[in-house]
């Protein structure tokens, strides 16, 4: 769709006379806002009129339908044409710059912002899924006081009263608890408040991200923000770092890293990637050498490395030695990176190692912290609790976050919070924390508010609303404004004014409009600062004695639990475990055997005086004697999707050491609880669906993936003649070296193609509906198996087995070689699925699509039929995008350009692992990829002649360590 990226800012829109008049007439009450509920309902109407909710109906007589045109059409809106607006989706304060596709002002789909350095057109999983969060039917829909519905006005009036009291004592009784604040506008507003109420205190806390923050502090004596440049690294060592999946900058990192991994376009080189992990991550699965270590061993390893690169010390395992050798031979061209779930100490040591390796300032640069006011958040939280306990808090304002759920047990936040006399909560859900607050204010979703936030490199990214708050939600800006002298000030005004103060140079108006239009402020990336990391003296390792070691990890998708109610994320298979709807007690094969448990057996884990119960999942690569636990599950008040999914491990964490626990006891409970994995068999059974080789092998024989035995025998057909495709011939190539299994493509596809969520029961019965899936295979023995990812969607075979067996021709080939699937012709014999060797077809066994929930209907893509019960469906190469591009091209009497059509999966892929285009055009990207020697067809021996092919997965193991693994 790149051609139509004609998104315009609503601000621009609001400045035009027509629109002013429109606002004036249609929405007299909120002049600042561009549209209110009335307006939204109007959008609903036209939405209802458009064919958005297309269903596969079998009735011959078309029911009478109505159309409700605007009373006055907003300018530039062309019914049926999507508009793209630039904004961002911040996760833990770090902006993910995006474009939002809207249909008649309904946000329906997220795309990356191609202009923005942090995105370059791609978006990660939580960002892709965020659109569903906007329409979450469980969102808090009204202002609420002690369970009674109130108006925002009534809140304000009583709030004013509270403030009056506070003003008397300089607001000494006021406490504000926020998540990490990075928005300069918000920070300015908070400062304003603290100015007005000198006695007031502001605390920040989030359960994750602490290690990165404090690590830098430890190493440099100041809060710095590390920025990695993987495109310049020849050797990468990851210490439990899932840098292509979690933390700031993942999208950009994934792209840069992939650029050093794929062997393509004449580039014969590859970086070498070592991973040391206490629990397998998707990034680690791509490593040339991945070694599982218990948390304590990881710490020891890093310390050893630190002293080794520092010159002192040596010895260590063969692996250690080779890693050291590689790193030192690549001084200034290597990266050592520590994971989000590592302690500050490890982070500090890693900074030191990078410095010793002369990487700092080259492959790793540092900028000032992205946070407006970086603090030791754990200390901050404790001081809040102290304040509460000492009964000095009258007015506690909790803005976002969910501390009661995620704070360590020992703090007993639940008890402490209730010491505050008045507790006000701004949140999107009536969640665990809201339970203990009197006033609940619905929080505006990111796509309903104005704000700003820095990207991973500090590039200042602006957010604009795409739809009026569905439930009259308020943004943090607006609630903070309530403290100030201008309590009614809108988020838009605050933002605009803040940047006015920052803007130097003439013509603020134009600059502002361009910035909003682009979604970020050009060249606002923070400058690199020079800083020297000092070697810290680590405390001695506290050996857990006997018992198991636990490593805690944020869930890759619902993170610390904040997205637990997002059904897309819940049903999105975890990249490594392939689990949906649950977290698990991750054990190694051996550990499980020792405990006499297997998948699904419930166990009780006791440590730090607390205990939780969960069910076991055996995972190759999990170090023996250790347990991997992911945060974010076991929510009790997250809404229909999150409640009861998985189990809550927060109680096991301590303030002293939130990342690991030692000396854990595991008790078998004798019960079982089924875990729903979308893939139950991980061995390749000697079939090599994923073809892989080392860089050496590749250099020896580039065509190693195209073995005779695995290509279709020629002339063994009774139909020798082939169909010719004049015009376009669409095809796809997927580079397995680049793919890091992040699943962004899966959720992007789900959003683009109205793919329903089926729920755990159906997943257990292997009826999930994702059109694209990322298969995960193991090679080698269970101990240190290598993992491989393979995205599989419909291959659009030229000799498609599925088409042959359909009795009603509901699936057949079109003139451009697409394997079409016609829902409204399908009678549902399911023979096509049986006969599909790739098993990529999906069947609506029941009525999976939600035809009732209004808010969910708003998200649907009007260009794709919403499938009903009893029909087959599958990947279409995003035919709606193909048709859109073809029609646009036809209207301009030209051919479709290469790159004009980008399927949802390819568009969002952070690693840029998917190429799509016209095979008849030898210059197209996909044709070039397919000419690569590594190009092979999956199950090519079946002579299905798929249009989707793969570039073999090339790895670059260290010869000293004997080939792979």
């Amino acid at each position, binding site marked *: 769709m790149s051609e139509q990226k004609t998104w315009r800012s609503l601000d621009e829109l609001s400045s035009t006379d027509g629109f002013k008049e429109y606002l004036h007439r249609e929405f007299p009450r909120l002049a600042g806002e561009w549209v209110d509920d009335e307006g939204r309902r109007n959008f609903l109407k036209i939405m209802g009129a458009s064919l958005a909710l297309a269903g596969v109906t*079998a009735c011959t007589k078309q029911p009478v339908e109505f159309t409700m045109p605007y009373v006055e059409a907003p300018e530039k809106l062309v019914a049926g044409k999507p508009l793209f607006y630039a904004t961002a989706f911040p996760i833990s304060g770090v902006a993910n710059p995006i474009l939002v596709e809207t249909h008649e002002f309904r946000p329906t789909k997220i795309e990356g912002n191609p202009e923005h350095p942090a995105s370059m057109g791609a978006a990660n999983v939580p960002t892709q899924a965020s659109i569903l969060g906007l329409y979450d039917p469980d969102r808090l829909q009204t202002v609420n006081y002690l369970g009674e519905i109130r108006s925002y006005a009534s809140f304000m009036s009583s709030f004013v009263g509270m403030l009056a009291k506070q003003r008397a004592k300089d607001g000494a009784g006021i406490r504000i608890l926020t998540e990490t604040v990075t928005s300069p506008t918000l920070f300015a507003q908070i400062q304003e408040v603290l100015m007005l109420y000198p006695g007031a205190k502001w605390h920040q806390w989030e359960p994750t991200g602490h290690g990165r923050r404090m690590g830098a502090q430890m190493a440099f004596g100041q809060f710095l923000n590390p920025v990695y440049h993987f495109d310049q690294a020849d050797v990468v060592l990851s210490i439990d770092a899932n840098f292509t999946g979690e933390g700031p900058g993942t999208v950009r990192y994934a792209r840069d890293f992939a650029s050093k991994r794929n062997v393509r376009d004449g580039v014969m080189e590859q970086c070498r990637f070592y991973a040391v992990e206490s629990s397998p991550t998707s990034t680690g699965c791509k490593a040339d050498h991945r070694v599982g270590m218990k948390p304590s061993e990881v710490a020891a390893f890093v310390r050893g490395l630190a002293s080794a690169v520092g010159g002192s010390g040596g010895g260590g395992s063969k692996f250690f030695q080779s890693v050291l050798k590689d790193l030192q031979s690549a001084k200034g061209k290597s990266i050592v990176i520590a994971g989000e779930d590592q302690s500050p100490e490890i982070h500090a040591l890693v900074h030191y190692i990078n410095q010793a390796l002369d990487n700092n300032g080259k492959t790793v640069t540092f900028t000032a912290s992205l946070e407006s006011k970086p603090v030791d958040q754990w200390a901050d939280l404790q001081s809040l609790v102290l304040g509460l306990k000492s009964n000095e808090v009258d007015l506690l304002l909790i803005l976002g976050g969910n501390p009661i759920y995620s704070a360590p047990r020992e703090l007993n936040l639940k008890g402490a919070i209730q010491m505050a006399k008045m507790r006000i909560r701004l949140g999107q859900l009536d969640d665990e924390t809201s339970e203990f607050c009197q006033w609940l204010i619905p929080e505006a979703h990111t796509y309903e508010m104005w704000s700003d936030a820095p990207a991973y490199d500090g590039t200042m990214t602006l957010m604009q609303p795409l739809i009026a708050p569905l439930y009259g939600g308020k943004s943090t800006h607006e609630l903070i404004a309530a403290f100030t002298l201008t309590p009614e000030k809108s988020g838009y005004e605050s933002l605009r004014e803040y940047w006015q103060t920052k803007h130097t140079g003439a013509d603020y108006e134009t600059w502002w409009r361009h910035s909003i239009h682009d979604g970020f402020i050009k060249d606002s990336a923070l400058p690199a600062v020079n800083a020297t990391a000092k070697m810290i003296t680590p405390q001695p390792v506290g050996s857990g004695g006997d018992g198991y070691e636990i490593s805690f990890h944020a869930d890759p998708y619902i993170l610390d639990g904040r997205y637990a109610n997002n059904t897309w994320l819940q049903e999105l298979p975890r990249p490594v475990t392939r689990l949906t709807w649950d977290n698990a007690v991750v054990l190694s094969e051996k550990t499980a055997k020792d405990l006499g448990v297997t998948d699904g057996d419930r166990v009780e884990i006791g440590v730090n005086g607390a205990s939780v119960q969960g069910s076991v999942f055996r995972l190759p690569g999990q170090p023996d004697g250790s347990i991997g636990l992911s945060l974010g599950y076991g929510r009790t008040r997250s809404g229909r999707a999150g409640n009861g999914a998985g189990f809550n491990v927060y109680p096991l964490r301590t303030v002293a050491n939130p990342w690991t626990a030692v000396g854990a006891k595991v008790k078998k409970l004798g019960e079982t609880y089924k875990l729903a994995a979308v893939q139950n068999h991980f061995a390749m059974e000697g079939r090599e669906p994923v073809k892989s080789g080392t860089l050496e092998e590749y250099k020896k024989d580039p065509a190693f993936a195209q073995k005779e035995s695995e290509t279709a025998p020629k002339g063994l057909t009774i139909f020798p003649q082939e169909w010719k495709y004049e015009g376009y011939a669409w095809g796809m190539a997927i580079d397995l070296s680049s793919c890091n299994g992040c699943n962004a493509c899966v959720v992007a596809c789900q959003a683009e193609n109205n793919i329903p969520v089926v729920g755990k029961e159906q997943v257990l019965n292997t009826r999930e509906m994702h059109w694209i899936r990322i298969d995960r295979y193991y090679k080698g023995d269970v101990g240190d198996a290598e993992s491989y990812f393979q995205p599989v969607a419909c291959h659009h075979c030229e000799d498609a087995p599925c088409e042959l067996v359909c009795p009603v021709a509901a699936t057949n080939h079109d003139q451009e070689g697409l394997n079409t699937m016609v829902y409204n012709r399908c009678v549902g014999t399911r023979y096509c699925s049986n006969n599909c060797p790739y*098993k990529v077809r999906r069947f609506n066994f029941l009525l999976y699509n939600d035809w009732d929930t209004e808010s969910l209907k708003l998200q649907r893509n009007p260009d794709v039929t919403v499938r009903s019960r009893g029909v087959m469906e599958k990947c279409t190469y995003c035919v709606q995008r193909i048709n859109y591009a073809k029609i646009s091209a036809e209207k301009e009497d030209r051919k479709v350009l290469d790159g004009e059509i980008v399927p949802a999966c390819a568009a969002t892929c952070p690693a840029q692992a998917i190429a799509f285009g016209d095979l008849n055009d030898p210059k197209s990207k996909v044709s070039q990829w397919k000419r690569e020697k590594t190009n092979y067809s999956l199950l090519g021996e079946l002579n299905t002649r798929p249009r989707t092919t793969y570039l073999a997965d090339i790895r670059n193991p260290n010869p000293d360590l004997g080939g792979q693994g």
Partner: protein
Amino acid sequence: MQPVELPDKIHVGPVIDEGHSLASVSDKIGGIVLKRRITLGWVFGLLISFAVLQNLMAGAAWLFIKGIGVWGVNIPNGWGFAIVNFVWWIGIGHAGTLISAILLLLNQSWRNAINRFAEAMTLFAVMCAGMFPVLHTGRPWLAYWLFPYPNTMDLWPQMRSPLLWDVFAVSTYLTISAVFWFVGLLPDLATLRDSAKQRWKQVVFGALAMGWRGSARHWQRYEKASLLLAGLATPLVVSVHTVVSFDFAVSIVPGWHTTIFPPYFVAGAIYSGFAMVLTLMIPVRQFYGLQDIITIRHLNNMAKVTLATAMIVAYGYSMEAFFGYFSADTYEKFMIWNRMTGPYAPFYWILILCNILTPQLLWFKKNRTSPFRLFCLSIVVNIGMWLERFVIVITSLHRDFLPSSWGMYYPTIWDWAVFTGTLGMFMTCIFLFIRVLPMITIFELRMLLPGARVKEPVAQ
């Protein structure tokens, strides 16, 4: 046609016991329909069957309300019980036409006592079978799209799909069997018409008999037509299960994609068909005292056919296994190995026991001539043949090419409801049939009587 008189020693008794005359057979068989009072046993049996038939009603209703998802089918296993049952029933439906057509061509006199019954059974079995392809579709109300008829969409079925071949094969088979059956009934309906006492029975049978009066000129054309029908029905029988086997053989799924399927499906069909005939015939012959017409010799012969087909099926199994090994194809090899040792292995070995080992008992005359033993054996074979279809459908599907998409299949109660329901329907039809129509071809029996021989008086 004249019964070929073979020396009695190779027979176990005659085709029809002595002491029967032209009149007596008519009365005996016609009597069951016309005179015999409705017995408690019959009513009881009918009620039971009808009750079981309600499973089908409930199962189908729920299926239509909720969707195909109420069954156990899922993504690797797109087909489950429905197709298993379909193939099983169709197989059973092969005995009738086979007996009346092929044996007629082979001039086997002993068929006369059993063909009518077997044909009726065929019709009912095919009816049961016919329901499954419709029920198992995601949108059954659109099943008519499988027929080529001009429509406002200008769309037509896809003639390359084995499922469409099925539509043609099964509907043809049903039609031709019905026609064949009715043609066979004509003279007997006339007999009933002429022996009926109540007016309404006379009218009903009279109307059905279409005024058949046994004219020599009619008989001559009648015999021609029957012979032609038999000649056409014989390849038809073979073709139907061949086409059914194509549903699998044409696909690329390992375990389905094999050339041995047509012959070994047909053999399997005859096998299960004869088993079912035995299952039904033995009790009926008991209750209605037809031992003198359906004699031990019939049972013995059917047992022999059963044994023969059992051996063919056994050959089929061994060939499958051999191909799997000999093809040197990863997927084929694995499929066979998985079938024998995988999660569904028990079913495989039970089916080997039922279909290959147990029938070996039929080598012994003692077993062939004991109605009770034959009855038990036929039940075993029926179960075995159902399992065979289950193993073919499921073990091939649940683990095919990409290990990532392997999965398991577990039937739900609704699968069972529909399956048992069709059994109920089948039995209901059988019970009604034996009461309202002569279950044995009277006029053909007559030809077996010694008195039926033409001995022209020499002196004129």
